[in-house]
């Protein structure tokens, strides 16, 4: 059994009098490629914020790399959801990616040669070398998402946390994001939250369904319409492109 990276034990978070997370128990292991699925308002982003130490748990416990959240910033690469992005901010792709090196540097320490090397590597990994010196606001949704992934990678994290990585991306660009993650799963533990039930099934190795608490988790092949309808409370479409998992009930060929 591989090491546990994140352990949530009966985790509860109350925000503004609402139980956003309740009795949530979930363990994420080294090498996992986990998708946390759930409806909007189901607590997906809150769970990420707790893992990052931005939100305090109200009850229960959580450890990240065996420590309380917020202590292991250098080992986590965070890719936030970027819907409200100041497209006019005068900053180049390279300068954004360099920020991924922040956890490695002391206060007032300047970016050095290693930092530039790691940033360049990360930009190459996500395929944006051509746009390295472009202003960040000129990128398309898919390119911007890849730039944010490069920023996370520049810090050489063990764990990648992605919040809705395909939310602001054109449908035909979604696959390239998932192809990229597929490449990255060799060297990183990956956790992504999404309500994109259509595409995610065939790529991740494990899914967990979150609506206030974890109602179902298991290998991606066990994802079926019934359990998702259960947490969403309305019919959903599940498309598993990998046809060897014939247990899935959603068999439509393409996802719109």
């Amino acid at each position, binding site marked *: 059994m591989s090491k546990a990276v994140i352990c949530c034990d009966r985790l509860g978070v109350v925000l503004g009098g609402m139980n956003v997370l309740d009795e949530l128990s979930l363990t994420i292991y080294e090498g996992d490629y986990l998708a946390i699925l759930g409806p909007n308002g189901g607590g997906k982003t809150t769970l990420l914020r707790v893992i990052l130490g931005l939100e305090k748990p109200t009850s229960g416990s959580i450890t990240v790399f065996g420590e309380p959240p917020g202590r292991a910033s250098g080992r986590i690469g965070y890719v936030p959801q970027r819907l409200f992005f100041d497209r006019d901010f*005068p900053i180049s792709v390279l300068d954004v990616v360099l920020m991924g090196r922040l956890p490695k540097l002391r206060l007032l320490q300047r970016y050095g040669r290693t930092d530039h090397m790691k940033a360049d590597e990360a930009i190459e990994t996500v395929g944006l070398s051509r746009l390295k010196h472009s202003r960040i606001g000129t990128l398309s949704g898919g390119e911007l998402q890849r730039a944010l992934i490069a920023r996370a990678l520049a810090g050489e994290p063990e764990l990648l946390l992605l919040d809705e990585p395909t939310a602001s991306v054109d449908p035909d660009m979604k696959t390239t994001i998932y192809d990229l993650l597929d490449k990255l799963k060799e060297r990183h533990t990956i956790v992504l939250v999404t309500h994109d039930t259509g595409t995610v099934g065939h790529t991740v190795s494990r899914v967990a369904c979150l609506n206030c608490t974890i109602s179902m988790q298991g290998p991606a092949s066990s994802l079926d319409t019934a359990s998702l309808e259960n947490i969403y409370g309305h019919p959903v479409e599940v498309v598993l492109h990998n046809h060897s998992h014939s247990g899935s009930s959603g068999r439509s060929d393409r996802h719109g």
Partner: protein
Amino acid sequence: MADMLHFEFMRNALLASILSSVACGIIGSYVVVRKIGSISGGIAHTAFGGIGLGYYLGVNPLLGVIPFSLLAAIGIGLLTRKAKVAEDTAIGAFWATGMAIGVILIGMTPGYAPNLFSYLFGNILTVPSSDLMLILLLDLLIGVVVWLFSKEFLAVSFDEEYARVSGLKTVAIDLVMLSLIALTVVIMVRVVGIVMVIALLTIPAAVARMYSRTLQGMMALAVLLSIAFNLAGLGLSWVFDVASGATVILVAALVFLLSGASRMLFRAKRS
């Protein structure tokens, strides 16, 4: 207009224009990209209390402005970030309190308060050489701190949450940045006065942003624009014999309006 340079006060005015533009272009760029213009306005107006204090104690009012604007910067920063007071509430409270203290202290000062008007609306033609020294020192201080904190300032400006996740002490870094705004206010009081500081902090940087790809580029362009606005305003005020600070602001506003309009037209044409 060439005869302008024969006067010492005119040479001082030109030097003050250039020196103050350095601070206001650099710090103004942060104000614009972080959208903290109203905090800056609050800091500037609170500083009126410091001018009152200067008059009351019989010292250079700029020396009173330094503690008041710094206090406002730290106070507004802490109230909004630590005590979770709504930002506009904190700004309003400091703004009015600072002005009130200024009014009372000036009232308590025996006799007439000379040049009060120039601290409110600026008078670059009366900048004494001793104030130029002070402005130069503050410029150097601001430049050094910005150079030291450039990585941190860029990180909190672009994505504060990501900076926090990365382990930066974002509240402390914010307070440093707000303090620099406070020092810039001290510099600008002589040039355009407390009431109009906010325009020179935002307009040159806002125009510069339209044509910049990096923050450093934006800062450099904002400094140059600010110098240009100052010189043009100074020249026009000389020719038409009107208030210099106000003329500088109107020149800046006109350029801002024109560059905004041309951008709108350009965009409309493209789409």
